[in-house]
Protein backbone atom coordinates (compact mmCIF):
# COMPACT_ATOMS: atom_id res chain seq x y z
CA UNK A 1 0.00 0.00 0.00
CA UNK A 2 2.92 2.32 0.73
CA UNK A 3 3.91 2.11 -2.93
CA UNK A 4 0.39 2.86 -4.11
CA UNK A 5 0.26 5.93 -1.86
CA UNK A 6 3.67 7.10 -3.04
CA UNK A 7 2.91 6.81 -6.75
CA UNK A 8 -0.60 8.21 -6.34
CA UNK A 9 0.66 11.17 -4.33
CA UNK A 10 3.24 11.88 -7.04
CA UNK A 11 0.58 11.57 -9.76
CA UNK A 12 -1.87 13.96 -8.08
CA UNK A 13 0.87 16.43 -7.20
CA UNK A 14 2.15 16.37 -10.79
CA UNK A 15 -1.42 16.93 -12.01
CA UNK A 16 -2.02 19.81 -9.61
CA UNK A 17 1.32 21.33 -10.59
CA UNK A 18 0.88 21.11 -14.35
CA UNK A 19 -2.92 20.86 -14.80
CA UNK A 20 -2.38 18.67 -17.80
CA UNK A 21 -5.46 16.46 -17.66
CA UNK A 22 -8.47 17.65 -15.69
CA UNK A 23 -8.97 21.19 -17.02
CA UNK A 24 -8.53 19.94 -20.54
CA UNK A 25 -11.06 17.17 -19.97
CA UNK A 26 -13.61 19.58 -18.49
CA UNK A 27 -13.33 22.12 -21.30
CA UNK A 28 -13.45 19.31 -23.85
CA UNK A 29 -16.58 17.91 -22.20
CA UNK A 30 -18.41 21.24 -22.10
CA UNK A 31 -17.54 21.81 -25.75
CA UNK A 32 -19.00 18.44 -26.63
CA UNK A 33 -22.26 19.43 -24.89
CA UNK A 34 -22.41 22.49 -27.11
CA UNK A 35 -21.64 20.37 -30.16
CA UNK A 36 -24.42 17.93 -29.21
CA UNK A 37 -26.81 20.84 -28.75
CA UNK A 38 -26.19 22.11 -32.28
CA UNK A 39 -25.75 18.66 -33.78
CA UNK A 40 -29.06 17.39 -32.44
CA UNK A 41 -30.76 20.78 -32.62
CA UNK A 42 -32.35 20.09 -29.26
CA UNK A 43 -32.58 22.65 -26.48
CA UNK A 44 -33.06 19.93 -23.93
CA UNK A 45 -32.94 16.16 -23.81
CA UNK A 46 -34.15 13.46 -21.48
CA UNK A 47 -34.31 9.70 -21.04
CA UNK A 48 -32.15 7.56 -23.33
CA UNK A 49 -30.87 10.51 -25.39
CA UNK A 50 -29.70 12.28 -22.24
CA UNK A 51 -28.07 9.08 -20.98
CA UNK A 52 -26.33 8.59 -24.30
CA UNK A 53 -25.00 12.15 -24.48
CA UNK A 54 -23.68 12.06 -20.92
CA UNK A 55 -21.93 8.68 -21.32
CA UNK A 56 -20.41 9.51 -24.71
CA UNK A 57 -19.14 12.86 -23.48
CA UNK A 58 -17.52 11.25 -20.44
CA UNK A 59 -16.05 8.55 -22.66
CA UNK A 60 -14.30 10.99 -24.97
CA UNK A 61 -13.13 13.21 -22.12
CA UNK A 62 -11.74 10.00 -20.61
CA UNK A 63 -9.83 9.35 -23.84
CA UNK A 64 -8.04 12.67 -23.34
CA UNK A 65 -7.10 11.50 -19.87
CA UNK A 66 -5.80 8.23 -21.32
CA UNK A 67 -3.50 10.01 -23.74
CA UNK A 68 -1.94 12.13 -20.96
CA UNK A 69 -1.71 9.38 -18.36
CA UNK A 70 1.79 8.01 -18.99
CA UNK A 71 3.33 10.85 -21.02
CA UNK A 72 5.27 12.33 -18.12
CA UNK A 73 6.62 8.90 -17.17
CA UNK A 74 7.69 8.09 -20.71
CA UNK A 75 9.40 11.40 -21.41
CA UNK A 76 11.02 12.08 -18.03
CA UNK A 77 12.28 8.63 -17.08
CA UNK A 78 9.39 7.85 -14.73
CA UNK A 79 9.29 4.22 -15.87
CA UNK A 80 13.00 3.62 -15.19
CA UNK A 81 12.80 5.42 -11.86
CA UNK A 82 9.94 3.15 -10.83
CA UNK A 83 11.58 -0.04 -12.16
CA UNK A 84 14.74 0.60 -10.13
CA UNK A 85 12.76 0.42 -6.90
CA UNK A 86 12.21 -2.95 -5.17
CA UNK A 87 8.45 -2.85 -5.57
CA UNK A 88 5.75 -4.90 -7.32
CA UNK A 89 5.15 -3.29 -10.69
CA UNK A 90 1.42 -3.81 -10.66
CA UNK A 91 1.15 -0.98 -8.16
CA UNK A 92 1.96 1.40 -11.00
CA UNK A 93 -1.14 0.18 -12.83
CA UNK A 94 -3.33 0.46 -9.72
CA UNK A 95 -2.02 3.97 -9.01
CA UNK A 96 -2.56 5.12 -12.59
CA UNK A 97 -6.09 3.67 -12.67
CA UNK A 98 -6.91 5.33 -9.33
CA UNK A 99 -5.49 8.63 -10.56
CA UNK A 100 -7.62 8.56 -13.71
CA UNK A 101 -10.64 7.60 -11.57
CA UNK A 102 -9.98 10.72 -9.49
CA UNK A 103 -9.70 12.88 -12.64
CA UNK A 104 -13.01 11.48 -13.92
CA UNK A 105 -14.68 12.23 -10.58
CA UNK A 106 -13.35 15.78 -10.66
CA UNK A 107 -14.58 16.02 -14.25
CA UNK A 108 -18.05 14.81 -13.30
CA UNK A 109 -18.34 17.18 -10.36
CA UNK A 110 -18.22 20.01 -12.89
CA UNK A 111 -19.81 18.31 -15.89
CA UNK A 112 -22.93 16.72 -14.43
CA UNK A 113 -24.31 19.97 -12.99
CA UNK A 114 -23.35 21.71 -16.23
CA UNK A 115 -25.20 18.98 -18.13
CA UNK A 116 -28.27 19.46 -15.92
CA UNK A 117 -28.05 23.19 -16.55
CA UNK A 118 -27.47 23.17 -20.29
CA UNK A 119 -29.27 20.21 -21.73
CA UNK A 120 -31.06 18.02 -19.23
CA UNK A 121 -34.83 18.35 -19.05
CA UNK A 122 -35.68 16.71 -15.72
CA UNK A 123 -33.79 17.86 -12.65
CA UNK A 124 -31.17 15.61 -11.10
CA UNK A 125 -32.31 15.89 -7.52
CA UNK A 126 -34.29 12.73 -7.07
CA UNK A 127 -31.90 10.32 -8.78
CA UNK A 128 -28.58 11.52 -7.32
CA UNK A 129 -27.53 8.49 -5.21
CA UNK A 130 -28.20 6.04 -8.04
CA UNK A 131 -26.48 8.39 -10.48
CA UNK A 132 -23.36 8.51 -8.33
CA UNK A 133 -23.25 4.71 -8.11
CA UNK A 134 -23.59 4.27 -11.88
CA UNK A 135 -20.99 6.94 -12.63
CA UNK A 136 -18.61 5.36 -10.10
CA UNK A 137 -18.83 1.95 -11.78
CA UNK A 138 -18.48 3.58 -15.20
CA UNK A 139 -15.44 5.56 -14.11
CA UNK A 140 -13.90 2.35 -12.80
CA UNK A 141 -14.37 0.70 -16.20
CA UNK A 142 -12.87 3.69 -18.03
CA UNK A 143 -9.97 3.95 -15.56
CA UNK A 144 -9.03 0.25 -15.77
CA UNK A 145 -9.02 0.13 -19.57
CA UNK A 146 -7.29 3.52 -19.87
CA UNK A 147 -4.52 2.54 -17.44
CA UNK A 148 -3.87 -0.72 -19.33
CA UNK A 149 -4.23 0.52 -22.91
CA UNK A 150 -2.40 3.76 -22.02
CA UNK A 151 0.65 1.73 -21.01
CA UNK A 152 0.50 -0.19 -24.31
CA UNK A 153 0.05 2.93 -26.45
CA UNK A 154 2.43 5.38 -24.77
CA UNK A 155 5.63 3.74 -26.01
CA UNK A 156 4.50 3.42 -29.62
CA UNK A 157 4.84 5.88 -32.42
CA UNK A 158 1.21 6.83 -33.10
CA UNK A 159 0.25 6.85 -29.42
CA UNK A 160 -2.39 9.61 -29.38
CA UNK A 161 -4.28 7.76 -32.09
CA UNK A 162 -3.62 4.18 -31.02
CA UNK A 163 -4.75 4.57 -27.40
CA UNK A 164 -8.34 5.61 -28.12
CA UNK A 165 -8.50 3.26 -31.15
CA UNK A 166 -7.85 0.27 -28.90
CA UNK A 167 -9.75 1.54 -25.84
CA UNK A 168 -13.02 2.57 -27.50
CA UNK A 169 -14.11 -0.88 -28.74
CA UNK A 170 -13.06 -2.35 -25.40
CA UNK A 171 -15.30 0.17 -23.62
CA UNK A 172 -18.44 -0.49 -25.69
CA UNK A 173 -19.93 -2.83 -23.05
CA UNK A 174 -19.41 -0.11 -20.42
CA UNK A 175 -21.17 2.42 -22.66
CA UNK A 176 -24.08 0.03 -23.26
CA UNK A 177 -24.48 -0.79 -19.56
CA UNK A 178 -24.02 2.81 -18.39
CA UNK A 179 -26.54 4.14 -20.92
CA UNK A 180 -28.96 1.39 -19.96
CA UNK A 181 -28.62 2.29 -16.28
CA UNK A 182 -28.80 6.06 -16.72
CA UNK A 183 -31.80 6.05 -19.04
CA UNK A 184 -34.45 5.49 -16.33
CA UNK A 185 -32.66 7.93 -14.02
CA UNK A 186 -32.85 10.78 -16.50
CA UNK A 187 -36.37 10.11 -17.70
CA UNK A 188 -38.90 12.93 -17.82
CA UNK A 189 -41.49 11.45 -15.50
CA UNK A 190 -39.19 10.91 -12.54
CA UNK A 191 -36.59 8.29 -11.78
CA UNK A 192 -37.15 4.61 -12.43
CA UNK A 193 -35.06 2.15 -10.42
CA UNK A 194 -31.68 0.68 -11.35
CA UNK A 195 -31.84 -2.29 -13.69
CA UNK A 196 -30.09 -5.12 -11.79
CA UNK A 197 -29.05 -6.84 -15.03
CA UNK A 198 -27.02 -3.87 -16.28
CA UNK A 199 -25.60 -3.25 -12.83
CA UNK A 200 -24.36 -6.83 -12.76
CA UNK A 201 -22.83 -6.55 -16.23
CA UNK A 202 -21.03 -3.32 -15.38
CA UNK A 203 -19.79 -4.72 -12.09
CA UNK A 204 -18.66 -7.96 -13.76
CA UNK A 205 -16.86 -5.99 -16.47
CA UNK A 206 -14.94 -3.93 -13.92
CA UNK A 207 -14.05 -7.04 -11.91
CA UNK A 208 -12.93 -9.17 -14.88
CA UNK A 209 -10.87 -6.48 -16.58
CA UNK A 210 -9.50 -5.28 -13.27
CA UNK A 211 -8.11 -8.72 -12.49
CA UNK A 212 -7.04 -9.35 -16.08
CA UNK A 213 -5.16 -6.04 -16.28
CA UNK A 214 -3.34 -6.74 -13.04
CA UNK A 215 -2.30 -10.13 -14.45
CA UNK A 216 -1.02 -8.90 -17.81
CA UNK A 217 0.41 -5.50 -16.83
CA UNK A 218 3.94 -6.46 -15.77
CA UNK A 219 5.27 -7.55 -19.19
CA UNK A 220 4.51 -4.06 -20.46
CA UNK A 221 7.26 -2.55 -18.33
CA UNK A 222 10.13 -4.94 -19.01
CA UNK A 223 12.49 -3.94 -21.74
Amino acid sequence: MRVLAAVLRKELRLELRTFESVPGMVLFGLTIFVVFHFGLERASVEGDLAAGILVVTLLFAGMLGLNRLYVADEEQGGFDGFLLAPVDRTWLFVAKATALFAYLVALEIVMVPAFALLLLEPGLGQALPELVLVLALTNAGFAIIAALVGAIAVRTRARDLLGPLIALPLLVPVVIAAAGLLEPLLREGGAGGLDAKWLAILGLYDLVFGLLSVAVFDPLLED
Partner: protein
Amino acid sequence: MTTAIELAGLGRAYGERAALDGVSLSLPAGSTLVVFGPNGAGKSTLLRILATLLRPTTGTVRVLDGELPREAWKVRGRIGLLGHDPLLYRELSARENLRYHARLHAVDPARVDELLDAVGLGARADDPISTYSRGMVQRAAAARAVLHDPELLLLDEPRANLDPAAAAALEPLLTGTPERPRTRVVTSHDPAGGLAEADVALGLRAGRPVLLAPAAGVTVDQIGALYR
Protein backbone atom coordinates in the same frame (compact mmCIF):
# COMPACT_ATOMS: atom_id res chain seq x y z
CA MET B 1 35.90 -11.25 -1.00
CA THR B 2 32.75 -12.18 -2.95
CA THR B 3 32.41 -11.07 -6.59
CA ALA B 4 29.88 -8.32 -7.17
CA ILE B 5 29.43 -8.83 -10.93
CA GLU B 6 29.88 -12.01 -12.97
CA LEU B 7 29.33 -11.77 -16.77
CA ALA B 8 29.76 -14.69 -19.18
CA GLY B 9 29.26 -14.07 -22.90
CA LEU B 10 26.80 -11.26 -22.23
CA GLY B 11 25.11 -10.01 -25.41
CA ARG B 12 22.21 -7.71 -26.27
CA ALA B 13 20.79 -7.42 -29.79
CA TYR B 14 18.10 -5.14 -31.16
CA GLY B 15 16.77 -7.23 -34.05
CA GLU B 16 19.84 -7.77 -36.25
CA ARG B 17 22.05 -5.13 -34.62
CA ALA B 18 24.19 -6.39 -31.73
CA ALA B 19 24.54 -3.54 -29.22
CA LEU B 20 26.63 -5.74 -26.95
CA ASP B 21 28.35 -8.98 -27.84
CA GLY B 22 30.37 -11.52 -25.83
CA VAL B 23 31.25 -9.50 -22.71
CA SER B 24 32.73 -11.66 -19.96
CA LEU B 25 34.25 -10.40 -16.72
CA SER B 26 34.25 -10.84 -12.98
CA LEU B 27 34.40 -7.82 -10.69
CA PRO B 28 35.24 -8.30 -6.99
CA ALA B 29 33.00 -6.47 -4.50
CA GLY B 30 34.16 -2.99 -3.50
CA SER B 31 36.30 -2.46 -6.60
CA THR B 32 35.72 -0.07 -9.51
CA LEU B 33 35.37 -1.06 -13.16
CA VAL B 34 35.84 1.79 -15.62
CA VAL B 35 34.41 1.27 -19.11
CA PHE B 36 35.96 3.11 -22.06
CA GLY B 37 34.85 3.26 -25.69
CA PRO B 38 33.42 5.60 -28.34
CA ASN B 39 29.76 6.56 -28.39
CA GLY B 40 27.54 3.70 -29.41
CA ALA B 41 30.08 1.13 -28.23
CA GLY B 42 27.49 -0.31 -25.85
CA LYS B 43 28.55 1.35 -22.57
CA SER B 44 25.07 2.59 -21.70
CA THR B 45 23.54 -0.74 -22.76
CA LEU B 46 25.86 -2.53 -20.35
CA LEU B 47 24.86 -0.21 -17.51
CA ARG B 48 21.15 -0.65 -18.19
CA ILE B 49 21.52 -4.43 -18.17
CA LEU B 50 23.40 -4.34 -14.87
CA ALA B 51 20.68 -2.02 -13.49
CA THR B 52 18.03 -4.70 -14.34
CA LEU B 53 16.34 -2.26 -16.74
CA LEU B 54 17.28 -4.23 -19.86
CA ARG B 55 17.11 -7.96 -20.48
CA PRO B 56 20.24 -9.60 -21.91
CA THR B 57 19.60 -11.57 -25.11
CA THR B 58 22.58 -13.94 -24.75
CA GLY B 59 24.93 -15.02 -22.00
CA THR B 60 24.53 -14.98 -18.22
CA VAL B 61 24.58 -12.04 -15.86
CA ARG B 62 25.02 -12.31 -12.12
CA VAL B 63 24.84 -9.05 -10.16
CA LEU B 64 25.32 -9.04 -6.36
CA ASP B 65 23.60 -12.31 -5.46
CA GLY B 66 20.93 -12.34 -8.19
CA GLU B 67 21.07 -13.98 -11.57
CA LEU B 68 19.46 -11.63 -14.12
CA PRO B 69 16.84 -11.37 -15.41
CA ARG B 70 15.21 -14.16 -13.41
CA GLU B 71 16.22 -12.92 -9.93
CA ALA B 72 16.16 -9.20 -10.71
CA TRP B 73 13.74 -8.62 -7.82
CA LYS B 74 16.46 -9.81 -5.41
CA VAL B 75 18.94 -7.08 -6.39
CA ARG B 76 16.58 -4.26 -7.29
CA GLY B 77 16.81 -1.53 -4.65
CA ARG B 78 20.48 -2.33 -3.95
CA ILE B 79 21.69 -0.73 -7.17
CA GLY B 80 22.07 3.00 -7.84
CA LEU B 81 21.99 4.28 -11.43
CA LEU B 82 23.19 7.71 -12.50
CA GLY B 83 22.64 7.70 -16.25
CA HIS B 84 22.25 10.38 -18.91
CA ASP B 85 18.56 10.63 -17.96
CA PRO B 86 18.28 12.11 -14.43
CA LEU B 87 15.01 10.17 -13.88
CA LEU B 88 13.48 13.20 -12.17
CA TYR B 89 10.12 14.84 -12.93
CA ARG B 90 10.86 18.32 -14.32
CA GLU B 91 7.74 19.91 -12.81
CA LEU B 92 8.43 18.63 -9.29
CA SER B 93 11.10 20.08 -7.03
CA ALA B 94 14.26 18.22 -6.04
CA ARG B 95 12.84 17.61 -2.57
CA GLU B 96 9.57 16.24 -3.93
CA ASN B 97 11.38 13.99 -6.40
CA LEU B 98 13.70 12.62 -3.73
CA ARG B 99 10.81 12.20 -1.28
CA TYR B 100 9.00 10.16 -3.95
CA HIS B 101 12.05 7.93 -4.53
CA ALA B 102 12.57 7.67 -0.75
CA ARG B 103 9.04 6.36 -0.32
CA LEU B 104 9.55 3.87 -3.17
CA HIS B 105 12.75 2.58 -1.58
CA ALA B 106 11.35 2.76 1.99
CA VAL B 107 14.12 5.18 3.00
CA ASP B 108 13.78 7.54 5.97
CA PRO B 109 12.71 10.99 4.60
CA ALA B 110 15.24 12.72 6.84
CA ARG B 111 17.98 11.32 4.58
CA VAL B 112 16.49 13.36 1.73
CA ASP B 113 17.23 16.70 3.41
CA GLU B 114 20.63 15.44 4.54
CA LEU B 115 21.55 14.51 0.95
CA LEU B 116 20.19 17.72 -0.52
CA ASP B 117 22.52 19.68 1.71
CA ALA B 118 25.41 17.30 0.96
CA VAL B 119 25.13 18.00 -2.79
CA GLY B 120 24.73 21.72 -2.14
CA LEU B 121 21.10 22.01 -3.30
CA GLY B 122 19.72 22.93 0.11
CA ALA B 123 18.82 26.50 -0.99
CA ARG B 124 17.06 25.56 -4.24
CA ALA B 125 15.54 22.28 -3.02
CA ASP B 126 11.96 23.45 -3.46
CA ASP B 127 12.25 24.93 -6.94
CA PRO B 128 11.09 22.73 -9.86
CA ILE B 129 13.85 20.76 -11.59
CA SER B 130 12.99 22.61 -14.81
CA THR B 131 14.54 25.75 -13.32
CA TYR B 132 17.85 23.98 -12.54
CA SER B 133 21.10 24.31 -14.48
CA ARG B 134 22.61 21.18 -16.03
CA GLY B 135 25.06 20.84 -13.15
CA MET B 136 22.33 21.17 -10.52
CA VAL B 137 20.23 18.51 -12.25
CA GLN B 138 23.26 16.19 -12.17
CA ARG B 139 23.65 16.82 -8.43
CA ALA B 140 19.98 16.06 -7.80
CA ALA B 141 20.25 12.90 -9.93
CA ALA B 142 23.36 11.83 -8.02
CA ALA B 143 21.50 12.33 -4.75
CA ARG B 144 18.67 10.16 -6.13
CA ALA B 145 21.14 7.45 -7.17
CA VAL B 146 22.69 7.12 -3.73
CA LEU B 147 19.51 7.85 -1.74
CA HIS B 148 18.96 4.19 -0.82
CA ASP B 149 22.67 3.59 -0.03
CA PRO B 150 23.16 1.06 -2.87
CA GLU B 151 25.82 -1.66 -2.75
CA LEU B 152 26.46 -1.24 -6.49
CA LEU B 153 26.75 2.15 -8.17
CA LEU B 154 26.40 2.50 -11.95
CA LEU B 155 27.65 5.88 -13.16
CA ASP B 156 27.39 6.98 -16.81
CA GLU B 157 30.03 9.73 -17.20
CA PRO B 158 29.24 11.17 -13.77
CA ARG B 159 31.53 14.15 -14.17
CA ALA B 160 30.09 15.25 -17.55
CA ASN B 161 29.20 19.02 -17.53
CA LEU B 162 29.99 19.36 -13.82
CA ASP B 163 31.96 22.36 -12.58
CA PRO B 164 34.86 21.58 -10.17
CA ALA B 165 32.79 22.65 -7.14
CA ALA B 166 29.95 20.29 -8.07
CA ALA B 167 32.42 17.45 -8.81
CA ALA B 168 34.03 17.97 -5.39
CA ALA B 169 30.62 17.98 -3.71
CA LEU B 170 29.63 14.67 -5.36
CA GLU B 171 32.96 12.93 -4.86
CA PRO B 172 32.37 11.55 -1.32
CA LEU B 173 28.87 10.36 -2.32
CA LEU B 174 29.96 8.53 -5.40
CA THR B 175 32.99 6.77 -3.98
CA GLY B 176 31.62 5.31 -0.77
CA THR B 177 33.55 5.15 2.50
CA PRO B 178 36.53 2.93 3.36
CA GLU B 179 34.63 0.94 5.93
CA ARG B 180 31.62 0.53 3.57
CA PRO B 181 33.21 0.29 0.12
CA ARG B 182 30.86 0.53 -2.86
CA THR B 183 31.31 -1.56 -5.99
CA ARG B 184 31.22 0.84 -8.91
CA VAL B 185 30.92 0.60 -12.69
CA VAL B 186 31.80 3.94 -14.26
CA THR B 187 31.84 4.85 -17.95
CA SER B 188 34.37 7.49 -18.97
CA HIS B 189 35.89 9.24 -22.00
CA ASP B 190 38.86 10.56 -20.02
CA PRO B 191 41.69 7.96 -20.26
CA ALA B 192 43.92 9.54 -17.59
CA GLY B 193 41.19 10.37 -15.05
CA GLY B 194 39.36 7.11 -15.70
CA LEU B 195 42.42 4.88 -15.25
CA ALA B 196 43.33 6.75 -12.05
CA GLU B 197 40.17 5.65 -10.26
CA ALA B 198 39.84 2.24 -11.91
CA ASP B 199 40.75 -1.16 -10.44
CA VAL B 200 39.78 -2.90 -13.69
CA ALA B 201 39.56 -1.33 -17.17
CA LEU B 202 37.22 -2.50 -19.94
CA GLY B 203 37.43 -1.21 -23.52
CA LEU B 204 34.36 -1.61 -25.73
CA ARG B 205 34.24 -1.12 -29.46
CA ALA B 206 31.01 -1.78 -31.44
CA GLY B 207 29.71 -3.84 -28.55
CA ARG B 208 32.73 -6.16 -28.35
CA PRO B 209 35.21 -6.17 -25.45
CA VAL B 210 38.57 -5.42 -27.10
CA LEU B 211 40.38 -4.63 -23.84
CA LEU B 212 39.95 -6.13 -20.36
CA ALA B 213 42.71 -5.89 -17.77
CA PRO B 214 43.62 -4.64 -14.30
CA ALA B 215 43.94 -0.86 -14.59
CA ALA B 216 47.52 -0.93 -13.31
CA GLY B 217 48.77 -2.70 -16.44
CA VAL B 218 46.91 -0.52 -18.93
CA THR B 219 48.54 2.53 -20.58
CA VAL B 220 46.74 5.72 -21.59
CA ASP B 221 47.44 5.29 -25.31
CA GLN B 222 45.92 1.79 -25.29
CA ILE B 223 42.74 3.50 -24.22
CA GLY B 224 43.31 6.17 -26.85
CA ALA B 225 43.53 3.45 -29.53
CA LEU B 226 39.91 2.55 -28.78
CA TYR B 227 38.73 5.85 -30.12
CA ARG B 228 40.71 5.81 -33.35
